[in-house]
């Protein structure tokens, strides 16, 4: 199973000319080898979380069994494929291509190390970067709980980290210099407002 997944992942390729087309055309391009792309065409018109989940052929999940059903390796693989594609197609943003590459690498590493990845975290992470196009490239890691976490480090005692726990919430950790001291923040807050909240206390997301 793992060998198969790793092979499929290594087969992902996005041709430059694919990226200049409308998403639905790109999905049908011979340059894209993911067998699930044909199902994405319908899903493309939907939003955020639905895009990834609707893209799973034959998989229907309710909110109650979401985390359980999507933890199967083959389902995570599909969510990863969808996430990478969304990032690659995000208006030719070089940052998002780097993020897509990083996500692909993390997925491979997680498979090799026997670590889990949470589908809801991958989707929320992708939604975040698709939405916030002007933020800088952060450090991107997996946590032992299988969630994705990003961190912008401006210097010693000066960073902002966001952990994508899925749903409407994210976790935030930050240290901000204040008049020779360091202010520390540990919070859980709404995904939709987290950037303005972080900027409100002086976080540099660059």
């Amino acid at each position: 199973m793992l060998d198969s997944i790793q092979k499929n992942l290594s087969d992902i390729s996005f041709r430059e000319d694919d990226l200049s087309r409308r998403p639905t055309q790109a999905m049908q391009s011979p340059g894209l080898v993911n067998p699930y792309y044909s199902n994405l065409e319908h899903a493309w018109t939907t939003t955020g979380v639905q895009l990834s989940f609707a893209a799973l052929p034959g998989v229907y999940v309710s909110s109650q069994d979401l985390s359980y059903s999507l933890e199967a390796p083959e389902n995570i693989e599909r969510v990863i494929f969808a996430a990478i594609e969304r990032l690659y197609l995000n208006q030719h943003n070089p940052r998002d291509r780097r993020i897509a590459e990083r996500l692909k690498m993390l997925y491979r590493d997680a498979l090799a190390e026997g670590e889990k990845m949470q589908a809801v975290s991958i989707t929320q992470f992708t939604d975040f970067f698709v939405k916030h196009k002007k933020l800088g490239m952060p450090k991107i890691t997996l946590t032992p709980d299988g969630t994705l976490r990003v961190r912008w480090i401006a210097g010693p005692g000066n960073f902002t980290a966001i952990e994508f726990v899925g749903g409407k919430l994210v976790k935030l950790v930050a240290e901000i210099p204040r008049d020779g001291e360091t202010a520390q923040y540990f919070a859980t807050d709404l995904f939709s407002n987290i950037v303005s909240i972080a900027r409100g206390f002086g976080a540099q997301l660059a």
Partner: protein
Amino acid sequence: MTDLDKDHHCFRHIKKSWLDGEFIEPAAFRLRTLDNGQLEDGLSINWVEYFNRPTPKEAVPPLRELLQMKGRTIGGESKFALLNAGRAKAAAAKFVKVEIVLDEEPDDPSHALVKGYQQFNDQVAEELAKVVIRSFAAKT
């Protein structure tokens, strides 16, 4: 369980997916959430002085071998983060008093735990990451 001497050291195995370049994700020092929703009892670490080598770096190969004998996957690009027991306890004490105790296992006499920070999991993890002395490649 015996407390580790404050002058002694411990290694925490840092998987590659918890690293971004030289950056060690502080969540690597967080207690994992178990299937029952509870946090694990303690953070697994290994007592460096058990290996009785002149330097921490020289303790890496026998530790790696021991962990692999236990069935652990030690990826080539993973690392071992070195911490001093006394400094780690002092760092965590900003939020809560933790214990660093030997927790010998039949197949791993160097096994130890950092215990007592369930209520401040994120906070203590951040502080422990700050006092990493250095990290060593798991495989050289």
